[in-house]
């Protein structure tokens, strides 16, 4: 049922639409401004940062003399962020792939193998999501100190794997259990073992689910502060970016040229990963990839 458009209603529609557009633009601007301020400031001379607002660069935005890379050079070398960057990579990549592998094997067993207590184990694993990280820290810290794995990279890989297991198993299970039974039965008839079925059919078909979890876990581990502080610590040899930047805020809180560049170094990798794999990330959070 279409109503005839009068001039008046058309005018009203245009008005509402421009108000909506303006409002949306305003919200986006408010959301982006804080980060934009940081980004611009990180390229300004230290003296300029503390004597004038970052928005003043827009008076002569193309005067390239007001920009510098010096802040980055200094923060990467003298303040150890270059090392911390590589430490973050060393901590994060295995902490992303190990839980996927472990969870995929577990999810396959839960979905396609027959053994007693299967449903009960599924409930136990997924139910563990309710345990907050804080509930585990003191016993694990003591365990790590007594086993002398505190401050080691394999130590933090396993910690992130352990914490990530419930969610990873849940996500992988909800995908792997949906793979058509015929495919798996046909492979079994052909004499394929569970291991072969897993490495060929399952791995290939569940790549999208794995990608979703991988992006999610990568961002989570890279951005995490608490687990890094407790299991790796503040020793420069192993400290990750989040730890070093938060130390920098404590010790050099007014040196904005260092803080802005440092924070941006810590943000650049996850932001790029996020922009490249947005689709998988959103699919992941819609499937229930949520952690705190």
């Amino acid at each position, binding site marked *: 049922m279409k109503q005839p458009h009068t001039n008046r209603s058309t005018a009203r529609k245009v008005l509402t639409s421009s108000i909506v557009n303006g409002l949306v633009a305003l919200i986006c601007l408010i959301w982006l401004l804080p980060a934009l301020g940081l980004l611009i400031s990180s390229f300004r001379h230290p003296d300029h940062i503390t004597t004038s*607002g970052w928005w003043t660069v827009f008076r002569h935005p193309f005067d390239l003399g007001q920009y510098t890379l010096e802040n980055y050079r200094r923060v990467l070398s003298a303040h150890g962020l270059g090392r911390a960057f590589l430490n973050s990579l060393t901590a994060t990549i295995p902490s992303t*792939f190990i839980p996927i*592998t472990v969870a995929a094997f577990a999810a396959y067993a839960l979905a396609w193998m027959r053994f007693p207590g299967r449903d009960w184990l599924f409930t136990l694993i997924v139910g563990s999501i309710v345990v*907050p990280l804080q509930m585990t820290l003191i016993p*694990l810290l003591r365990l790590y100190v007594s086993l002398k794995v505190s401050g080691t990279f394999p130590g933090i890989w*396993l910690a992130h794997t*352990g914490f990530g297991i419930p969610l990873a198993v849940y996500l992988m299970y909800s995908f792997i259990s949906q793979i058509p039974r015929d495919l798996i039965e046909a492979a079994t008839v052909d004499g394929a073992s*569970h291991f072969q079925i897993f490495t060929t059919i399952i791995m290939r078909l569940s790549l999208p689910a794995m990608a979703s979890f991988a992006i999610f876990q990568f961002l989570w581990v890279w951005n995490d502060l608490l687990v890094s502080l407790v299991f790796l610590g503040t020793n420069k040899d192993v400290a990750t970016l989040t730890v070093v930047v938060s130390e920098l805020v404590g010790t050099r809180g007014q040196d904005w040229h260092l803080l802005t560049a440092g924070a941006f170094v810590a943000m650049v990798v996850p932001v790029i990963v996020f922009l490249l794999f*947005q689709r998988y990330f959103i699919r992941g959070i819609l499937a229930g990839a949520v952690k*705190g």
Partner: protein
Amino acid sequence: MSKRVTRLFIIIALSLALFFALRACFQFIQAPETPRLLGALVAVIAGVGGVWAIYWLANEWVSLIPFRRIQEKLLPLIFLGPALFLLAVYLIYPALNTVYISFFDRRSENFVGLANYAFIFREPDVRIAFRNNAQWLIVVTTTCVVLGLLTAALFDRVKWESLAKLSIFLPMAISAVGASVIWRFVYAWQPPGRPQIGLLNAIVVALGGEPVGWYLRPPWNNLALMVIMIWLQTGFCMVILSAALKNVPDELIEAARIDGASELQVFLNVSLPYIRGVVITVTTTVLIAVLKVFDIVYVMTRGNYNTEVIANRMYVEMYRFVNFGHGSALAVILFLAVVPAALVNVRNMRRQRGEQ
């Protein structure tokens, strides 16, 4: 038979080789003199390749067993075992142990009954943490969900929706540490008379006011910290709520419009009730994240100036006061606060599993 023996030897040799290779890799990664880039590379290969090699070898060991029935009994253990082991070591055992040591003194030597709980409910500093967590809970959760709904509904009406959404959920890729630095700079304070470099104080001064120490002056400094979390979390709410809103059947909305309902009425009386379940999930999820908030407070104020929260206080008890009794009692309280919301989420997850 001899074939099987040869295989046995090969597998033993490979297992030993894997063990020593991994140990050598870990020592190499950890050594301070290792060039970091090379260390990172070895870490990736050893970590990712190592875990695959372990599963493969375990599977080979099982396949050596001559009886097929035993093989089939053992195989689920190989597939599921590592996950269960890690779950037990990293979640189940520590959680139970935390409850246990919350009834013991600072070094877990003497039983003290409920003394740790009495302490945390009596101590003024810790009570501030509870008060703040309650405020965070109400303000951040409500604001995130309402803003998420608002942006989801509003952005649906513009042509550049995906770009607009991107600017709201981009902060999801940023760490709380990074976000804290960003907002510290927005809140930056300079003495009156000097040019303000923080955006907020520049606006205040331009309007004729005095510069404000946003995150230092109680009681409003808590709000300044909450804003950071709202900035980080709203995108998450928006993404999920937006997907849910797009699933509301067009017929329902059209029918309401024909009945003469205004756009606002359609939203409140048709769309919102339809996505009620999703709104609850989003709310509980943000609620859990807010209860556990740590990074923002740790970076911005370390809990000073009346901004303490439970998770930060627990960290302080662990490291500054080295009192594991108080620390674990705080963890247990946090757990008890999280459980009701978390159970709602787990129930939703199980329901989804049932629907599939």
